[in-house]
């Protein structure tokens, strides 16, 4: 791209981000009026807080086996509030620690996907032409592939561990974000302030970073909030299949898998982690729905 004005002006229009911010503020006000979404935020906040500080408050170690209390049912008086598993480990502290893993992976992998997807989509949309064509055909091809198989193969390839799961899931689910950001970019790049930045001699990648990407945040937040539960489901699914988080660490999926094996005799071992996961996914979906209603300009 040859730019006749290159170097004459380096400052970008500083108020370009302002309207987006006020849109977001307006959206947050709408979100506050959505009762289901607010309830979702409270439930999720409670879950996150419990998982963050809870393990420190429960007077049991997640890996210490209590041979006097193997597969104990939940009880209010016996000390083990949620019972113990078949190795005599306290289920409550394992549930909270597992939640820490599941939630952390959910949020971080969604962030990772947002970073890749936003970058990819903004570059494809902004540069257009052959670059866009090639990048979008690649997305078409990737869309046709069975995601889950790739996540499984990536975890086998890179070894098992929290970081690997995070990278594998995040590296596979960014496609929708990329498509949405590209669409936003296509309409944004015809706006005057982009023209101004270009006339001011800003480099294309600089425009993408400082002007395009911040203005796609509204749409990105909505879809990122939908990604978090999706990632948590995928992580739990991997752990459920035995390919995710490994013993002695736990995650909700791993606990559900163990609980399924014990459900004939100790159904609580399945119901507690399944309930925690379902409650979290519920609240996240309500938050995501609320955010979409509040922020997505299409649905107004």
């Amino acid at each position, binding site marked *: 791209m040859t730019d006749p004005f290159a170097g004459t002006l380096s400052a970008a229009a500083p108020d370009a981000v302002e309207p987006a911010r006020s849109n977001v503020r307006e959206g947050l006000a709408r979100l506050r009026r959505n009762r289901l979404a607010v309830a979702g935020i409270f439930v999720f906040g409670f879950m996150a807080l419990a998982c963050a500080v809870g393990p420190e408050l429960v007077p049991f170690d997640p890996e210490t086996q209590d041979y006097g209390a193997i597969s104990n049912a939940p009880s209010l008086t016996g000390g083990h509030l949620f019972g113990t598993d078949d190795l005599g480990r306290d289920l409550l502290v394992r549930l909270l620690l597992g939640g820490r893993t599941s939630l952390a992976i959910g949020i971080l992998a969604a962030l990772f996907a947002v970073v890749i997807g936003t970058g990819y989509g903004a570059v494809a949309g902004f540069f257009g032409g052959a670059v866009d064509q090639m990048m979008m055909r690649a997305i078409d091809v990737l869309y046709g592939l069975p995601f889950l*198989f790739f996540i499984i193969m990536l975890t086998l390839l890179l070894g098992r561990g929290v970081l690997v799961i995070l990278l594998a899931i995040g590296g596979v689910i960014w496609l929708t974000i990329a498509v949405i950001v590209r669409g936003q970019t296509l309409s944004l790049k015809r706006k005057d302030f982009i023209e101004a930045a270009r006339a001011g001699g800003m480099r294309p990648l600089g425009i993408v970073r400082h002007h395009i990407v911040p203005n796609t945040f509204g749409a990105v937040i909505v879809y990122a909030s939908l990604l978090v539960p999706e990632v948590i489901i995928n992580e739990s*699914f991997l752990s459920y299949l035995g390919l995710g988080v490994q013993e002695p660490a736990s995650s909700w999926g791993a606990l559900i898998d163990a609980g399924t094996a014990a459900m*004939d005799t100790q159904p609580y071992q399945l119901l507690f982690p399944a309930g925690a996961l*379902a409650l979290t996914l519920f609240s996240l979906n309500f938050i995501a729905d609320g955010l979409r209603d509040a922020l997505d300009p299409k649905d107004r």
Partner: protein
Amino acid sequence: MLRYFLRRTLIAIPTLFALITISFFMIHACPGGPFDGNRKATPEVMANLNRAYHLDEPVYQQFGRYVWGVLHLDFGPSFKYRDYTVSELLLLGFPISLEIGLWAILIATALGMAVGTVAALKQNSAIDYAVMSFGMTGVAVPTFITSPVLQLAIGDGLRWLPVAGWDGGWQHKILPILALSLPPVAVISRLTRGSMIESLRSNHVRTARAKGLGMPLTVLRHALLGGLLPTLAYLGPAIAGIVTGSVVIERTFSIPGIGRYFVEAATNRDYTLVMGSVIVYGTLIIIANLVVDLAYSLVDPKVRYD
């Protein structure tokens, strides 16, 4: 239309090739090999095994050999099930997976659209709220929770149906099909409700009502087509979801389909079986997406392709 069809079909070929290439090199790059579990094989035996299965060749040469085989519909021998070829294993399991999957899709579409239509007609009633909260459950609660809970409640608790297993009888099919169809039922009922509400407010529906057409006929003849579009668009992803869902379902319900092969084969490094199941699933998803997109362009005249 014809150009669009050709272009979409042509995209399917590189997609499938990319699928085969990426999976092949990924699974071969995974540490370990298919014979690691063998008890104390001498180096000579290992060398013979590797030579017999061409594992001593460079990977690109194995890849060429494999692609050549696939082009002739030869998916090679299984490393784990020594007496079977991959094609035989897939042919044994596929009809079972397909049966469960087709029933799940069928039930999901019919039930989801019926329930969604009722909810739209009775907007903001108790029925509507019940449907919507059920819909949220289906979206939020994954299959690997619903299937053990179903087993626990209906199989183990009420003892109405067998907990797991497969003998070809209908009793063994109900719970897995139910578990597999719950998520798409939920999504389809939500989608149908939304689009039906919009469709019922549209001008041509009001005209039909004004001319004295009864509500049931108006819905059937005029509103339903508009309400059908989002469901149709969702069927592609729904089929992909059912495909991955079958991995869970076949595991929890011990069903001898091909869903259980994938995870098992991937952990055993049964290279050919992994590739075989990836190819079958990938082809299925690609074809489903193609058919759905074409159907969509036929039903919705607003969609134009160039």
